[in-house]
């Protein structure tokens, strides 16, 4: 019987082609705009490392006086789960996790000793040797540096395949020298493609947006970066949060970066740890609390520093880079949802008109023995067919919407903002479902039509 209703629906749609087009357009615009926003939100909610993110945690330590009002910018850094460099290194140095790595992004000009090859401004990651194992970074050549290189503050780097191709086309660069600033670094490894999204290793979104979609171009030991006074990317804007009189007293002429890296009030270092299982989190929280107690004792402060240990997903929900976009898109989602409701209300009104035009046929069917449920089913099948057509048109609207979104969203999101078969089916299914819902009342009305007219006026 459903097949019969389907045939009737198609015939009916072809008979009223303009009314059909109007309803389909209303549904397509509503569902297309909603699916566009949903897709971007979905991309933002993505898990950068779904296969092991449940084992990855971001510890944080807030040593600031809780009684003092938070400067807004500072709160942003706290939300990003950032620690001061000394705290991050000290907690990492406890080696209480399976793997641990402190990190911050660095931007440096890289060159080689060949005037023909142009220097490149590289987006680098200053981190620890465990980073590569913890985040499953693939290597096409060489290997990560060793922990002893971290300890020795060795001038070693790992570079990306694309950077290797720029400086050393056709040559294995392992063992060769790369200049960063005024320092020479030995290349120990070349990574394959590694570009997780969202880019959790760049919590403040300070890395060059054009480059982040291909992942960091260079990695160096974090202590080497500090020792060579490579400023974290975005350092200038961060330092500007603090008035000069807030800075700790250091001897005249001390480089600002030296003060910065030695002072617990400055938060710009990220720490990630890998635990053997999620159940180990409680134990690691005790480690953090123990460190906080030591900190309190050591620094003589009256308050206990606040600690937290967020899972990858918790961290993503709070990280400023994704959280602000989520807030904006959350609002956009409500607007899109409201727009969808308006479109569906229009579609429902048009379906009311459509079924009213069919009332003659439906009344004849009732007279010939169709129960109300059969009439309603026939109308709902027609609504479903309209919904599927609206969904197909909605896919086109979604594609257009995503193209527009790709022009406006941060570039690191572009890779995630795309249409796949899942989205195509989801769009069509959503359109069919909501149109079915919107068609319920018109179909119910159609099934309750009085039949007296069918006999004419006697």
């Amino acid at each position, binding site marked *: 019987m459903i097949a019969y209703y389907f045939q009737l629906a198609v015939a009916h749609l072809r008979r009223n082609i303009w009314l059909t087009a109007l309803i389909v357009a209303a549904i397509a615009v509503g569902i297309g705009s909603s699916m566009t926003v949903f897709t971007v939100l979905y991309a933002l909610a993505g898990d950068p490392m779904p296969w092991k993110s449940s084992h990855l945690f971001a510890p944080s330590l807030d040593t600031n006086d809780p009684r003092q009002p938070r400067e807004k910018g500072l709160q942003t850094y706290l939300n990003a789960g950032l620690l001061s460099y000394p705290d991050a290194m000290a907690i990492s140095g406890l080696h209480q996790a399976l793997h641990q790595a402190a990190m911050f992004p660095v931007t440096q000009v890289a060159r080689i000793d060949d005037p023909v090859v142009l220097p490149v401004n590289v987006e680098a990651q200053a981190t620890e040797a465990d980073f590569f194992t913890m985040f499953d970074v693939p290597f096409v050549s060489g290997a990560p540096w060793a922990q002893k290189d971290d300890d020795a503050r060795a001038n070693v780097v790992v570079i990306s395949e694309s950077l290797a191709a720029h400086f050393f086309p056709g040559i294995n660069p392992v063992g060769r020298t790369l200049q960063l600033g005024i320092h020479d670094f030995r290349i120990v490894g070349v990574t394959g493609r590694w570009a997780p999204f969202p880019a959790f290793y760049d919590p403040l979104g300070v890395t060059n947006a054009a480059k982040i979609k291909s992942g960091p171009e260079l990695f160096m030991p974090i202590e080497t970066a500090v020792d060579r006074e490579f400023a974290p990317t975005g350092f200038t804007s961060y330092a500007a949060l603090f008035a000069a009189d807030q800075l700790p007293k250091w001897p005249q002429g001390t480089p600002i970066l030296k003060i910065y890296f030695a002072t617990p009030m400055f938060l710009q270092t990220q720490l990630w740890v890998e635990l053997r299982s999620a159940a180990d989190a409680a134990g690691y929280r005790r480690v953090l609390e123990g460190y906080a107690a030591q900190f309190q004792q050591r620094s003589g402060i009256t308050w206990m520093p606040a600690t937290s240990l967020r899972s990858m997903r918790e961290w993503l929900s709070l990280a400023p880079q994704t959280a602000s976009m989520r807030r904006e898109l959350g609002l956009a989602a409500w607007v899109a949802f409201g727009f969808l409701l308006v479109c569906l209300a229009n579609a429902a009104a048009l379906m009311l008109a459509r079924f009213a035009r069919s009332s003659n046929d439906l009344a004849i069917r009732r*007279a010939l023995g169709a129960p109300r449920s059969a009439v309603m089913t026939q109308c709902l099948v027609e609504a479903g067919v309209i919904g599927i057509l609206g969904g197909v048109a909605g896919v086109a609207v979604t594609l257009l919407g995503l193209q527009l979104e790709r022009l406006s969203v941060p570039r690191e999101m572009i890779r995630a903002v795309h249409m796949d078969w899942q989205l195509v089916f989801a769009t069509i299914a959503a359109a069919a479902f909501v149109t079915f819902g919107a068609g319920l009342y018109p179909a119910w009305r159609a099934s309750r039509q009085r039949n*007296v007219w069918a006999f004419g006026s006697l």
Partner: protein
Amino acid sequence: MLTMNRLFKVYRTETIETHALRDFSIEVQPREFVAVTGPSGSGKTTFLTVAGLLEEYTSGEFVLDGVQVRTLNDRQRSQLRNEKIGFVFQAFNLIPDLTVGANVELPLRYRSMSRVERRKRVGDALARVGLSARPNHFPSELSGGQQQRVAIARALAGSPRLLFADEPTGNLDTQMALSVIELLEDLHRGGATIVMVTHDPDLAARAQREVRMVEGQIVPCARPKRMAIHGTNASRRGAA
């Protein structure tokens, strides 16, 4: 076949209460051909909609082919209507999107019936009304008389026990009207029970019995009861 006893049908709005059927009683015997006549607003439409199970009545008793109608839900009423009642409308009421064959097949679609059985019944019904050659035509491609024949074929396809005809010749010219009424008479001779609503006294005169309605009630009818219509002059309607 059909018994209504002290039946009331009241339409209510916020301000008006209309008694469309008022203490209405009628009995139609199997194989009977009854004409229902009366002025406009006398309740003939209401009688047909209630008797055809398209509307519920307010009070009274209604038994159709031995079934107490009051107790039935919509699905049961629809099934009873589908299996036991056929309709022939003044305006034919064919669905313009469907072919002649599909229109005739319509009541059979709401039964659990195989496609083969449906096709056979459609073929038989069209043969009875002389339209075997037109199953793939659309209603708009037929004359008014042919459309009414299709409507009769549709009513017959379900093998109903009771046929309601509402001004079946009202939209037809004299010749076509004659052919349609002769077809109804043939069906009656074949054993069908027919209740026909009409304004036309000549048409009513061709029924076995005439029931006259005024203000929702049956009133005495001046015309003497005809005992039989078999063998009547088929050209009478045409002469009129």
